[in-house]
């Protein structure tokens, strides 16, 4: 059984724009997969479908043994933890600890058990000492870690991150990569940051115009310059794939 199985998923927005057009994607438990694609490829739409936040126009999404439908939404949302691109959209409670507790409290976790979960999730992302600060006083890197903690506190089976490296300085980027490697064994990384995908994910798919157009080991995809160019993806200036791969091996 797959941790996540997207089969023939299509989505048409009310204005007639077709954002997804028959997406096929299966992720095993313990697998880290990067979803690459240019702006407007349908990455965020796909992500919203994984937690049943949009209704599929056609096709279906299954999480473990559950097919997403109205009846299974609550359990699906526990299993799939989404870290949204903008922490401002996700962190809304008065303090970091309250925000991290929001998800588990929705699951009915209370009192001491709730406090333990919050403390464990904050320790996982290294924010224990900022538990009682208002989220908007944190740096972007800290905010993103707080948003991740809010998801980890729900003990998800699969973590989905939307552009986690956006707006981060190099050190915050590295910190977050380390935390994701430690805390999210099954990960879907939605990004156009190709080096980050290589660093975190063994496998990558390219999503373009609402379709999965490539599915292979990340290093192979990044080595195929023609494929990248066809889908408006590019390695950063001066990036050496060989150097990156050899430093990953060490």
């Amino acid at each position, binding site marked *: 059984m797959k941790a996540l199985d997207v089969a023939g998923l299509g989505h048409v927005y009310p204005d007639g724009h077709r954002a997804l057009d028959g997406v096929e994607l299966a992720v095993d438990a313990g697998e880290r997969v990067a979803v690459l694609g240019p702006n407007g490829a349908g990455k965020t739409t796909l992500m919203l479908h994984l937690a049943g936040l949009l209704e599929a126009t056609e096709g279906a999404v299954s999480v473990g043994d559950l097919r997403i439908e109205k009846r299974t939404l609550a359990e699906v949302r526990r299993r799939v933890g989404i870290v949204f691109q903008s922490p401002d959209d996700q962190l809304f409670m008065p303090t970091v600890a309250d925000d991290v507790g929001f*998800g588990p409290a929705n699951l009915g976790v209370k009192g001491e058990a709730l406090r333990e979960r919050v403390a464990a999730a904050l320790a996982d992302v290294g924010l224990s000492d900022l538990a009682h600060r208002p989220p*908007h006083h944190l740096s972007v890197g800290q905010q993103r870690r707080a948003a991740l903690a809010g998801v980890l506190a729900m003990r998800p089976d699969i973590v989905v991150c939307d552009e986690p490296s956006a707006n981060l300085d190099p050190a915050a980027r590295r910190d977050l990569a380390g935390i994701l490697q430690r805390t999210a064994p099954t990960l879907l990384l939605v990004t156009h940051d190709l080096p980050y995908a290589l660093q975190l994910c063994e496998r990558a798919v390219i999503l373009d115009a609402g379709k999965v157009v490539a599915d292979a080991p990340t290093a192979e995809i990044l080595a195929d310059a023609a494929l990248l160019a066809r889908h408006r993806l590019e390695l950063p200036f001066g990036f050496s794939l060989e150097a990156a791969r050899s430093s990953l091996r060490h």
Partner: protein
Amino acid sequence: MNGAEGLFRPGDSPLHRLAPQTKVVALVVFSFAVAATDREAVWAFGAYAAILVALFWLARIPAGWIMVRSLVETPFLLLALAFPFLVGGATVEAGPLDLSIDGLWAGWNLFAKATLGVWAALLLAATTPVAALLAGLARLRCPDILLQITAFAVRYAHLTIAEVTQMRLARLARCDDPRFLWQAGALARSLGTVFIRSFERGERIWQAMAARGYTGRLPLDVGPAAASARQWTAAMGAPALAAGIAMWTAVAM
């Protein structure tokens, strides 16, 4: 306004340490006592002011800070100044002016009560973080929906203000100079943009909340512990004194 921190001034005074729910109740009782006091019992208002000044001193809140924040009541003060000219009845001569005696009393009444109310509210706001205030209100069984609205307003007001500020800077950087009314078009349009953006953000926030299992109830069991009898006694000291004074004036007048 510095965003969601609101008017809170971090500190460790006895007032800061009181449970938030006790302070909310104290504020309400104090305000009722002030409002119920006869307007001609001038000494009573002096006593209330003295109580507040003592509490400000206890909480280490500087007078300048209070005065600047008190400017919020300016519209009421202007109205209070207008009363002696607008109200009829017997008049008293003050230089070239004919002032209504009833209007003078009405102006004084508004000035004294509004100022004391603002000061008492400032005292609460300065010694209680916004989060604690909400938790205290939850503890007092304030309806959940009101708390949710307040929490969101506080959280996102800060973001919206930051957005408005940034858009203004971006306009100025392109030589916008909205000093006159006919140049305000750009300002109006950017406010419109902020409105649309806020609306769209609302939708994204809802999605992020639903992704974490939100079904319409905010889990606010994060509230503070119950306040001890000692805390209640300490918090109710000042309002009890004020209520006593109010009753005294009611009996004596």
